[in-house]
Every structure is written in C-alpha cells, then in structure tokens.
C-alpha cells in the first residue's frame, strides 16, 4: 500500500444495525495539510472522525496513520502515536483547574519539570493564563473549548483531529481558535470537522464534503462552496 499520506483511509464503511452511516470513504491527508471536513447534519462526519480516533471500529475498510494500521486500535493507542484529539462534545476534566487539565496532558511524555514549563507556555498560547487556577467546570463554554485545545496542544501532536472546534464560540473566541489552529498547523497535519462556513473560509484551503455517508466532492474551498451540487445539499439547508 502506498504511504504518501499522514492519514490514509480506504473503503471505510460503518453500519449501525441496518443503517449505513458511512460508505466506501477514501480519504488521504498529506503531510502538514489542513483539511476541513464539512457536510450537513447527520452526514457522517463524526462517525468518520470516530473511526480515525479509535472510538469506533469501522465495519469495513482500512485506516492507516503514518502507515500504521489503526483499525481496531484503542483511542489511547492512537493518541499515543502523537495524535491530538478534540471530540464534538467538549471533553475536559470539570472538577480540576485549567492548569491541572493541561498539566495532565503535558506530563504523559515529559518530566514533571518540563510539563510545568509546557503548561505555562500553553496557557499563554491559548490566552487563558488569567484563569489558570479556575475550575474548568466553572468556565463559560467557549473557554472550556479553549482548555480542550490546550490539552491537545500540550501533547505536542503531529496530527490533530478536531470535531467542531468552533461550536458555541463567540466571534472573538472563534478568531482566537482560527489563530491557534493555524499555529498548530505549522507543526502538525490537521483535520477539522466543521459546520460554520465563516470559520471554514477563514481556515482552510482544501475541504472534503460528506453527504449521506459518502464523499460528495473534494477541492479548493472557494471552488467547492460555489459548486451548485454542494450548495444544494449543504448550503441550501443550513443558510
């Protein structure tokens, strides 16, 4: 099998009982690429995302991350390769402080001393140093999203998977998120699942459109968004 991408998915399919959520999806992500995965509600974006992260085992097909067969691997094994993951539903440790959340992420591959340093740097990078000691559960939604970004960043990943990072963010926070993602992209390949068109325009050059579990089209963002078929299935519904 050719190894020309960071992520190589071939013929991936997922069935829930009789319902087919994903069908023969082929997907390749190149080194240092930033790719947006878009599509209407229920298109299968999160399902595909979960196949990549090991949270879901595809019914058929083959997924390789840097050539390593990832079908059936556990999420911690995928993350252990150096993959940073943010799920659609914000997943943070609410009962711990912002600093503790990020520290736990930083500590996996580092000594306590360098983990402490990474925490300070990360807090600065995502701009939440002022709430470092606050309980994450007490923060507003947007800030919790940023904390989750922080946990992803602190692991210094070379591949980052983000499911709807802009959901629930204010315009300011979304702008910050775009900046953070851009910065992360200097060191890592990134897949962003997103709904918000404005956010996608700010972010990506290549987008992949999923529709009813299949890939509808793939291409440069402006071209794709002008495509009448895409406008029909996607923009027609949500805007």
């Amino acid at each position, binding site marked *: 099998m050719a190894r020309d991408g960071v992520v190589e998915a071939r013929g991936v399919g997922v069935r829930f009982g009789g319902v087919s959520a994903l069908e023969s999806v082929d997907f390749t992500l190149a080194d240092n690429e930033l790719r947006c995965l878009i599509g209407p509600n229920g298109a299968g974006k999160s399902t595909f995302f979960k196949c990549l*992260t090991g949270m879901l085992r595809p019914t058929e097909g083959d997924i390789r991350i840097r050539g390593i067969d990832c079908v059936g691997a*556990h*999420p*911690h094994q995928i*993350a*252990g390769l150096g993959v940073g*993951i943010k*799920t659609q539903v914000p*997943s*943070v*440790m*609410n*009962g*711990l*402080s912002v*600093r*503790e*959340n990020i*520290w*736990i*992420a930083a*500590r*996996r591959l580092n000594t*306590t001393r360098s983990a*402490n340093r990474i925490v300070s740097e990360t807090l600065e990078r995502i701009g939440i140093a002022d709430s470092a*000691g606050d*309980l994450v559960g007490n923060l507003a939604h947007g800030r919790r999203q940023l904390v989750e970004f922080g*946990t992803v960043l602190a*692991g210094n990943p070379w591949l980052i998977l983000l499911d709807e990072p802009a959901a629930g963010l204010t315009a300011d926070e979304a702008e910050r998120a775009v900046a953070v993602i851009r910065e992360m992209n200097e060191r890592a390949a990134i897949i962003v699942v997103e709904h918000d068109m404005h956010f996608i325009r700010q972010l990506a050059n290549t987008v992949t459109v999923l529709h009813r579990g299949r890939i509808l089209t793939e291409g440069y963002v402006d071209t794709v968004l002008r495509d009448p078929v895409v406008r029909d299935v996607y923009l027609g519904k949500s805007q």
Partner: protein
Amino acid sequence: MTSRQLVLSVVIAAIVMFVLPVFFDVLNLTTYAAYALLALSLGFVWGYGGILCFGQTAFYGLGAYVYAMTAINLGEAWGGFFLAILIPAIFAAILGAMMFYGRLSDVYLAVVTLVVTLLLFRFMNTTAGPEYVIGEARMGGYNGIPGFPTLHTPGNPDANIYDEELYYFTFIILFVCYLLTRWLLGSPFGRVLVGLRENEQRIELLGYDVRARKTAAFAFGGGLAGLAGCLYANAAEIVTPELFSLGLAAEAIIWVIVGGTGTLIGPMIGAAVLGHLKFVLGLQSIKQVFGKENPLEATLVFGMILVLFVLFLPRGVVPSIQGWFGRSLVGRFKSGSGMRRRTRSERARNGA
C-alpha cells in the same frame, strides 16, 4: 505534600495517637484503626479512582484469612503480615483487570465486587470440614480460625506485640499508609487517576491507558484493605466469615459516605466514629434500655445515618466542614501536590 505539611501532620497524628487512649479502650481503638485503614482504601479507590467498589471487604477478609493461615503454618507473624498485603493486592489486580479490560460499567462493577465478597462469605462458611485445610491451618467454616500467632518483635515469636503496643503499632501503620496514599495522589500517577475520575474519555484521548491505570489503583487499594484485615485479625485474635458479610461491606460504604468521598481523612474519621458508635450500640446496658426483645439494632441506626447524610450532608462531614471554613485552614494543611504554584482553592479541592 511539602515538608512543613509533613511535619505538621506527624505532630497532629502523634497528639491524636497519645490522647485517644486517655478516653477509650486501647483494644477498641486498635479495631477502629483497622477499620480506618479499610476506609482509607475504599476512600482512595472510590473517591479518587472513581471506582465504585461495593466489595472492598473482600480484600479485607482475604488479608485477615491469609494472615491467620500463614501465621499458623509458619509459627511466626511477619511472613503472614506481608502476604496479607501481597495476596489481596494480586487478587484485586486480577479481578480489576477482568472488570476494566472487560469495560464493565460502574453499576455492574459495584455488583460484581459485592457478589465476589458474598461468594467468599458463602465459601468460607462451608469450610468447616477437615478437608478444608491449607498446611496445618484449618479454615474452620463459620467458626473461623482462632488461636493463630499474633504480631511479635521481628525474629522473636515469643515477644508478642499486644494491648497498648498493638494499638500504637496499628495506628502508626495507619498513618504511614495515609502518607503513602497522599504521596501517591500527589505523584503523576495520582494526578492522572483523579483526571480519570473526572473524565475517563479525555484521559484516554490524551494517550493514557485507562484500563491499566485503574487496575493498578484497584490493586493498591486491595493491598491496603488486606493490610487492614491483617491488623484487625491481630486485634480480634480470630478471623471469621463475618468479615465477608453483607453487613460489613455496607458499613464500609457508609463510613466513606459519612466521612466524605474525595478526601482521605474523612473516610478514616467516619470509620472510627461509626465503629465506636456500633460498639456503644452493641453494649448490653443500652439494649436493656430498649428492652431485650427489641434491641436497638446497629444496622437500623446505620441505615438511618446513611439516609440522613444522603439527604442533608451528601458530601460527607469533612468536605462540608472544609466548605464552611472557607477552605483555607483545612486545605492548607492537607494538600497533595504534584505541581508548582497551585492556588489555595486548588489545594482545598484536592484537600485532606
């Protein structure tokens, strides 16, 4: 834990250790200290690891039995002392691995651990016959095992540690285990464990193997509980299947709830206070107040206490007191620390 906190907790523990015998019987206190160690183990596993174990007494009873039978076979105490930690820890590791690698949900986990305890209860009750013997130690069925060698000065099986000495010994072991658990919680392993309690998926997505870590934490708790069982056996000088009974399993949970989950000191205090309450309720003179045919049942009282706490003080005594005192005092003394420069409120939350 900073060295100042360490010194402070040593001082407090020493004062408590020397003052208690002024007011209470040392044999009772020894028993309460063993209970407190059992509660510490459950407080760790449940309150910090988020593992709802209804059968922590399985490891406690196992520790007691392992100690008694080893002591009979060896004719001395210390081999049994260490096996009473090791074997329950290994048993917990195996049981834990089956549950965590099998992805058992919390409720099933609670049920499975309880069922294991009750199976041991049933089994130990059926071991009355002479065929149930390991080496020279007969398991004794519902009568249990009496008359095993108790703790003694190492190397000299005739120099027994008993009465006051046994109390001090038990108390010091309890305190050392408390410090050890604090240290563990302050270590990176402990910090990740607390994170895991908060959000298992997040920890997994950060690349930590949740199953292995929970198994390790469960084994540590099992070892502590086993040691508690060994200390109890030395105080009681008999081990019986009652150690695996539903009643004791329930009591251990009540101690932790009343004392407060999410702290270590809370469950320990809960165990000692309720242990004493049970003793007082069991006294013949009190039963007579209520009439011999209608003795005041400890189980009933404990049930009421549990209901009252769940309704009015659901966080337990120690966390509530911490809340009332603005967290500053208690939090400052009793914090685990794996990180630099943690704020006061952070410390209080990880408190006691």
